[in-house]
C-alpha cells in the first residue's frame, strides 16, 4: 500500500507540471487581453506599457517564464530571474498582474468560503441523495420510486444558476417572496462562523440539489445490480434481517462508485467548479476569483488556482482509492 501511495504522489507531481504547461500554452496561444496594457490603464503611452511588460516578466521568452514559475512554486532557488520577478519559492505562486497581491494570499483568502460552501453542500447532498437512492432501489417500480426519479431528473436538468436565482426570489430574506433564508451577499456581512453557515444555507441547498439527484440515481442503479447478486440471496437465506442485508451487504458494495464520484466532486468544487453558485449568491470564493482572473488575463492567479485545483483533485482521488481498499475487500494495491 505504501509503495502504491508513493507512486501515486509522484504521478501527481508530474501531473501538476503538465497542467501548468498546458495553462501556459493556452494563455499564450489563444487570444487573451494584454495584461501589461490592462495594468497600464487607459491612455498609457507605449513606453510605460513596455516598462510594465518588463516589470511583470512578460517580455521574457515563454519557456523562461514557465521555468521561472515552476522554480518559484517547487524550489527555493533563484533561477531564471525568480528573485527579480516575484521572489523565490517554494510555494511562491507569484503576484496578481492587476492588484499585485501575492497569489497565495488571494487563494488562502478565498479558499475558506469555497471550502465551507463545499463542505455544507457535501453533507446535504449525501443526506438527501443516499437515502433517496437506497429507498428507490428497495422500493423499485413503486410510486415513490417513480416520483423520486422524476424529481431527481428535474434537479439534474435545472441549471444551477437558474435554480439559485429562483431560490433567491422565493426564499431570500431581502428579495424573496417568503423571507426565510439570508439573501445574496449575506456571506460578506456574516462575521461569525455560524453566521457564515447560516448565510450559506440556501447556496448549500442549491449546490447540493443536482448532485444529490445524480447520487440518488447512481446509487439506485448500483443497488439494483448488487441486490441481485448471489451473496445477497445467501444472506437472506441465512436469515439475516432485511435491514442488515440492505445496509451491511447491499449498500457497502453498491457505494464504491459513489465514493469515486464524491472524491472527484469535492476536488472539482474546491478547484473552482462552484463558480455559478458563488456568482449568484456573491460568495467570495475560488470560482468567483478565477472568472475575474480570466477576464483580466491575470495569468499568475489563473495558474495558481488551477494548480491548487489540480492538487485537490489529485489528493482526493488518492484518498478515494485508499478508501476503496477498506470498503471493498477484493481491492488490494501493490
Amino acid at each position, binding site marked *: 500500500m505504501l509503495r502504491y501511495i508513493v507512486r501515486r504522489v509522484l504521478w501527481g507531481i508530474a501531473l501538476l507540471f503538465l497542467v501548468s504547461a498546458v495553462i501556459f500554452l493556452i494563455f499564450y496561444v489563444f487570444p487573451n487581453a494584454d495584461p501589461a496594457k490592462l*495594468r497600464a490603464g487607459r491612455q*498609457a*503611452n507605449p513606453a510605460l506599457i513596455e516598462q510594465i511588460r518588463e516589470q511583470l516578466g512578460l517580455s521574457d521568452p515563454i519557456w523562461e517564464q514557465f521555468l521561472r514559475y515552476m522554480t518559484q512554486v517547487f524550489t527555493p532557488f533563484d533561477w531564471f530571474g525568480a528573485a527579480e520577478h516575484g521572489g523565490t519559492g517554494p510555494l511562491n505562486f507569484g503576484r496578481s498582474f492587476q492588484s499585485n497581491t501575492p497569489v497565495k494570499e488571494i487563494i488562502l*483568502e478565498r479558499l475558506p468560503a469555497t471550502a465551507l460552501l463545499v463542505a455544507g453542500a457535501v453533507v446535504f447532498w449525501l443526506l438527501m441523495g443516499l437515502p433517496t437512492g437506497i429507498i428507490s432501489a428497495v422500493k423499485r417500480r413503486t410510486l415513490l420510486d417513480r416520483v423520486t426519479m422524476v424529481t431527481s431528473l428535474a434537479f439534474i436538468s435545472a441549471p444551477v444558476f437558474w435554480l439559485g436565482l429562483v431560490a433567491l426570489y422565493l426564499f431570500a430574506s431581502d428579495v424573496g417572496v417568503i423571507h426565510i433564508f439570508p*439573501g445574496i451577499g449575506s456571506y*460578506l456581512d456574516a462575521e461569525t462562523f455560524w453566521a457564515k453557515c447560516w448565510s450559506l444555507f440556501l447556496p448549500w441547498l442549491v449546490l447540493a440539489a443536482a448532485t444529490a439527484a445524480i447520487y440518488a440515481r447512481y446509487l439506485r442503479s448500483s443497488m439494483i445490480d448488487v441486490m441481485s447478486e448471489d451473496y445477497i440471496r445467501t444472506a437472506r437465506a441465512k436469515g439475516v434481517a432485511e435491514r442488515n442485508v440492505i445496509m451491511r451487504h447491499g449498500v457497502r458494495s453498491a457505494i464504491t462508485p459513489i465514493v469515486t464520484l464524491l472524491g472527484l466532486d469535492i476536488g472539482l468544487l474546491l478547484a473552482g467548479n462552484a463558480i455559478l453558485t458563488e456568482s449568484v449568491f*456573491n460568495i467570495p470564493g475560488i470560482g468567483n476569483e478565477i472568472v475575474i482572473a480570466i477576464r483580466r*488575463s491575470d495569468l499568475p492567479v489563473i495558474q495558481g488556482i488551477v494548480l491548487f485545483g489540480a492538487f485537490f483533485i489529485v489528493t482526493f482521488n488518492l484518498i478515494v482509492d485508499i478508501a476503496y481498499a477498506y470498503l471493498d475487500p477484493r481491492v488490494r494495491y501493490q
Partner: protein
Amino acid sequence: MRLTRLRLLLPALLLVALVGVLSSCGGSDSGTSSEEESAGIPSEFKAPTAAPDNAQQGGTLVQLNEGDIDYMDPGAAYYQVTYSVTLATQRTLMGWPPDATQPVPDLAADQPEVTDGGKTVTFTIRDGIKFSPPVDREVTSEDVKYAIERSLLPGVPNGYTAAYLGDLEGFKEAEQAVAKNKTTAPDISGIETPDDKTLVLHLTRSSSTPVIQALSLPVSAPVPEEYAKKFDAESPSTYGEHVTFTGPYMVENNSSGELTGYTPGKEIDLVRNPNWDASSDYRPAYLDEIKIQEGFADPTSASQKILSGDSQISGDFPPSKTIVQEVATGNKYSTDQMVAVPSGGNRYIALNNTLPPFGPGKGLTAEQALNVRKAVIAGSDRTALRNTRGGELFGPVATHFIPPLIPGFEEAGGLEGPNLDFVQNPDGDAKLSASYMKKAGFKSGKCEGSICDITMVGDDAPPGKDTATVFQNQLEDMGFNVNFQPVAHDIMYTKFCSVPSNEPQVCPNVGWIKDFNDPQSILQVPFSGDSINPSNNSNWPQLDDPAINKAIDQAVTITDEQQRAETWGKIDDQIMAQAPAVPWVWDNDVLVRSEDVNGVANLFNGEWDLAYTSLTNP
C-alpha cells in the same frame, strides 16, 4: 370588452402607459432645470446634489459593486468608480463638491494664482491637513510635488500625467531619468516648493487651464516621501497596499500602515480618519463607516437587494431594464429610490478612417470614404442603439461628442447638434443615407461589392453585444456584409480596437468619459491625430485631420473660459463634419438606494458621494 380579454390586455396596457410615462419625460416641463433637460433626465429622477438640512451623523452604509476599483494608489487611480473612494479619502489640490461644475480649492487654500500669461501656477497649501496614521503629520507642498513626480514611475501606472502635466518644465528630462532608474521618483524641475505651504508650477506654454483641472484628479493627493519611498522602490510599487489618507475617511489599516480594510475583489472598509479636521473641509462626512462589497455579478438581484433592504446604495452597475421599469411604476418601490446623473461621457461607434470603405483605398478616394461615413451616420437608428442601454433615462441620443454639462456642449449645438444633415434624424434617414452612398459612387444607394465586406469586433456580453448586434443589422440594411466577432471586453480593446495595426473596420463599443469638466478632456485624446499611439490607442476612428489637430493644439492654451467653450465647441463641430464615428448616446449613470438612505450624487464622477450621503435613521 369581455373581462378575460381585458385581463389579457392589461399587461400590454400597463406597458404602453409605462412607455408613455417614460417617454413623456425628457421633454420640457415646468420645474425641470435645463441641465436635467439636456441630459434627458425627468425631474422625478433628478439626483440630489446636496445633503438635506436635517442630515444626521452616524451609521454604516453599504455600497454594492460588481467589480473592484482599479487602484487604491491615488497616483495610479484613473476610474470613475475609484473616484468614489478617493473623493471621500483623499484631499487633492482642487476638489469636487457634489454640485460643482468646476473644481474648487480643497487641499489648496484658495484658487491658484495664474501669472506669466498662463505659464506659472501658484498654489498655497491649506493649514491643518494631516496624514492619517501611521504618518500623522501635517501635509506640505513637498508631499504634492512627490505625488506628481512618483506618477512617472512604471510601478505607478498613471495614464494621464503625461497628457495633462506634460507641459511642466523638466517633464521630458524626468521621463528620461525614469527610463534609467525605474524605482526612484525623478525630480521635475518645473515644480518648485519655496516653502512648506507654496507650490509653484512652471509650464512651457500657457496651458494652465487643463493643468489646474488635472490637479483635481487623484494624482495631486499628497504622498509623504519618507513613508512611501520604500514602497515605490519595489517594482511595481506596493504603496497601494500602504496608502495614507487626508480625507474624512480612510481604509482601515494596522499600525505599520498596511491596509487591512481592503481585499481586492472582495471589499473595502472605510472608517473615519482620526486626523481629519472637519473645520478645514467642505465635506460633512455624516457616516461612521462605509463598506464597499464587491462581486455582485447580477445587477437585477443586486438592485432588488438595495431597493428592498436598508442602508445600501449601488456602485458600479446600472440597474437592469426590468428594475428601471419596476421603480418607474412606483408600485413596489418609491420612485425617488432611483436617480440619474449625467456621467460626462459619450458612447460612439468608431469607423476606422484608415481602412476602406471608411477610409481611402481599393479605388475609393478620401472624399468618397467621407461620404460613406456620412451615409452610415445618416442611416443609423441611434435611438435604437441608445435603447439597448435601457432607454431614455440612460441618456439622450448624441448628435456630437461633447456631453451635457461640459463647457462647449451648447456651443457645439447642444441637444440638436451641429448644422449637419446626416446627424439630424436620430431614428435614421434611409433616403439621406442612400444619397450619400450615391455620392460615394454606389449607384444603387447601398454599399456594393467586396469593398463592403467589413469586420466588426465588439463585446461578447450585454449590453455591448446588444448594441453591436443592432448596429450590425443596420449596416446590413445599408448593403454592408458584416463579419461580427464578439470577444471579451478587455480583448476587444487590448488586442483589436486599441491596436491600430490590428483594428477592424468597425469598433461598436467605444466611448469616452471626461477626465474633468473641460472639453479638452473629451476631444483631445479620442480625436487628435497626435494622440494616435501604436499599442494603446484611444483615437479609435484614427482620425488624423491636420486642421483639427492644429485647432486642438492651439485650443489647449486658451485660458479665457468663454473663449475656450466656443473654440472647443467649434472643434467638436469640425470633428463631426468629418463623420469619423457614430455618436449615439451621452451617458447617464442610473443609481439606486435603499429607502433609509439620503443619497447625494456627485456630478463629477456620476456616482453617490460617500462624504455627503447619510442615513435617515443611523
